[in-house]
């Protein structure tokens, strides 16, 4: 089985494209490039595309991935050097690689890194925030109540799903965090939950206006986290 893994960015207004919309967009872009796609069988033949890890609508990213099954190798410059008029505004293809791994791309994913820009009501001292982050990460338990549709809410300890939190900068009533969390089928956490729990813990009043950007998605090779391609 031959696949191409493509790394792409989703910034600007394109962050408002939903997952299914991205699937259709990618399908049409790949068709237009005339790549040797492998189609599914049946009455509605489609190219076989999978995305590494779903990205919430409204979250931008500079490190997204999808893979697509192909029938033969071709010049990857077709993808990497794609004319930008072929792409919706804000979408960029930044890398591509062939793969024969029979495991799906989703099964490889272990963690993701995000940058969170959050507005605050006051100006906070950067050292104080850093100390609070350390204390926050040293806890044995961070309990998060998950609200579920038509089911009872459940409480989950999420401390093991948080790999790291760093304070990048504080200024002008804004704190910038870098958050590393587990991603994928073995454990998955949304970055905004970390932010929510931290603001509770540190008693910081974060305003509703949060911008989140995913920086990278990682797989694990010999106990080391490395980008997907």
């Amino acid at each position, binding site marked *: 089985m031959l696949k191409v893994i493509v790394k792409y960015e989703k910034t600007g207004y394109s962050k*408002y*494209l939903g997952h299914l*919309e991205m699937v259709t967009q990618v*399908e*049409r872009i790949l068709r237009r490039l005339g790549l040797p796609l492998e189609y599914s069988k049946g009455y*509605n*033949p489609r190219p076989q595309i999978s995305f590494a890890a779903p990205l919430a*609508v409204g979250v931008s990213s500079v490190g997204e991935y999808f893979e697509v099954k192909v029938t033969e190798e071709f010049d990857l410059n077709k993808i990497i050097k794609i004319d930008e008029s072929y792409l*919706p505004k804000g979408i960029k293809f930044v890398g591509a690689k062939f793969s024969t791994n029979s495991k799906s791309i989703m099964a490889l994913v272990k963690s993701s890194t995000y940058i969170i820009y959050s507005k605050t009501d006051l100006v906070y001292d950067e050292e104080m925030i850093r100390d609070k982050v350390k204390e926050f990460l040293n806890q044995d338990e961070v309990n998060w109540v998950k609200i579920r549709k038509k089911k009872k809410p459940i409480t989950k300890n999420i401390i093991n799903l948080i790999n790291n939190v760093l304070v990048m900068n504080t200024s002008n009533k804004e704190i910038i965090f870098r958050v590393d969390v587990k991603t994928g089928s073995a454990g998955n956490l949304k970055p905004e939950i970390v932010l929510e729990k931290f603001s509770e813990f540190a008693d910081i009043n974060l305003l509703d*206006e949060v911008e989140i950007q995913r920086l990278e998605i990682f797989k694990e090779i010999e106990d080391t986290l490395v980008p997907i391609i």
Partner: protein
Amino acid sequence: MKKLDKCLKNVQNPSRYIGGEVNSYNKEVDGEMVRVALAFPDIYEIGMSYLGFQILYNLKNERDDIFCERVFSPWTDMEKEMRKNNLELFTLESKTPLKEMDFIAFTLQYELSYTNILNMLNLSNLELRAKDRLDTDPIILAGGPNAYNPEPLAEIIDLFVIGEGEEVNLEIIDLYKEVKKIDYSKEKFLEEASKIEGVYIPSLYSVEYNDDGTIRSFRPKKDFVKDKIKKRIIKEFDRAYFPDKVIVPFQEIVHDRGMIEIFRGCTKGCRFCQAGMLYRPIRERSKEDILEKIEKILNNTGFEEFALSSLSSLDHSEIKSVVHEFIAKYEERKIGLSLPSLRLDSFAVDLLKEIQKVRKTGLTFAPEAGTQRLRDVINKGVTEENLFSTLEEVFSNGWNRVKLYFMLGLPTETYEDIKGIAELGEKSVETYYNVDSKKRRGRPEITISTANFVPKPFTPFQWFGQNSVEEFNEKHNYLKTEIKNSKINYNYHGSWESTIEGVIARGDRRLNELQIKAYELGCKFDGWREHFNYELWVQAFNELNIDPNFYNTRQRAYDEILPWDHLDCGVTKEYLIKENEKAKEVKYTDDCRDHCTNCGVNIQIIGGDCYAKSNS
């Protein structure tokens, strides 16, 4: 955070509002540029499905001195956010407030979208009534099939385009640039524009009424203003503008595929069909032209499906070879073909077999009426034998899901005719079971769908008194009890919706205030069942003392001045009267491809034989 981001974070389907799709335009704005917002008074998914919308968008944007952007009705969640955050309605491309445009050009496709026009003006902080808007405000323009009765919007819209817009839109913009150079006022521009063929400026005409409410006179206010406005058509359709690319939409839009208009017009002469009368004469695009455009559009979009669109696509004189060549060329690329309007005959089935090699779709047929007598009244040339032999072939070839479309409330309809619909459904199921069980597939799924007949201007039935809400309800209930087979699924349109549609369709100028009142009471998205509120409409009728029956259920006389009589669509009133009389006598009128039926379009509009070109 920007206001727009605040809104987008809190709505469903935010990509309806962001623009930036593949093949959309973004231009560096300079002071000289004429800026147009192409506006569709419904949501993105609907507006983006109209081919005409995409044609006009590309046509204007191919010119460097025009920047044409798009705007749709924001869905109610977005509207709420916009009002909360004080964000005016904006264009998708450059996010510019509509108020800063030179033109806002609305597409009029259905009556129940008109309150959305009012809402879009309001969300742009523009006055609803044309007379209250300033010289600095954009010119509000409207066109599309519903512009053939402009009167219910005559006090809201500044300028109507009657007929095909490809040429006249650019003429209007050129004139605007000229008038801007000298000393611009809206009044001056509109007066000049009224001289362009196909342009109707409602503020230049006055109406007087008789005591019984009918129109006494409809007259130009100034002597240079013409009495009748002739529709515009593209005479050399083969050379008519058609874009090489279309926008690849976000969302799953209603018609999510490439499209090409293979011909314009229709020769069938169905008496209920407004499009069939308005879009005359028939003009075909050649096979070579069609295939060349398809290739370009596919290469520029990556669509996985393509539609050959027209009022009756199988009637294109080269349809068979178009389909064969399409399949041969694109089968390997897994690109499917769809034919939106199917005939009931074996020719259609043969083509379907060819098409389904790539992708299989459900089938829809439109017998329109339940008995032969009524089908003859409406001039729908379909026999029961056509229907069942087609269904037999279709079922033998592995289809099991079929939709059948009918209308209720047609002229001369009796309960026998309605019963006939149920019987056709029943026989369709029987036809399925009579097919060799090795050939058929699954189990039969027949859907019967009825629309309520709404008489439209410029049709032979334009004088007919529409059924009342009570009559429609009774007919729905009757048909529901007559359809007993569990293999048949029945659905129908709401009676109140059809009543409001009917009132506006044949309405006059007095309905401007009615619609403004209804809008102020809270009406919008009237075409959406979950938003349509007939009680508010009833309240608006009552408050303004307007009787809906005057517009709707009343049978009109041939000598009455109709609100759209000042427009000339080419088909003469004499022809419409003749056809209406033939309907009463249950007399069939042949397809005018075979011989001319003297509808008038050749004399009024072309000045020659309809077929002089397309048959050569």
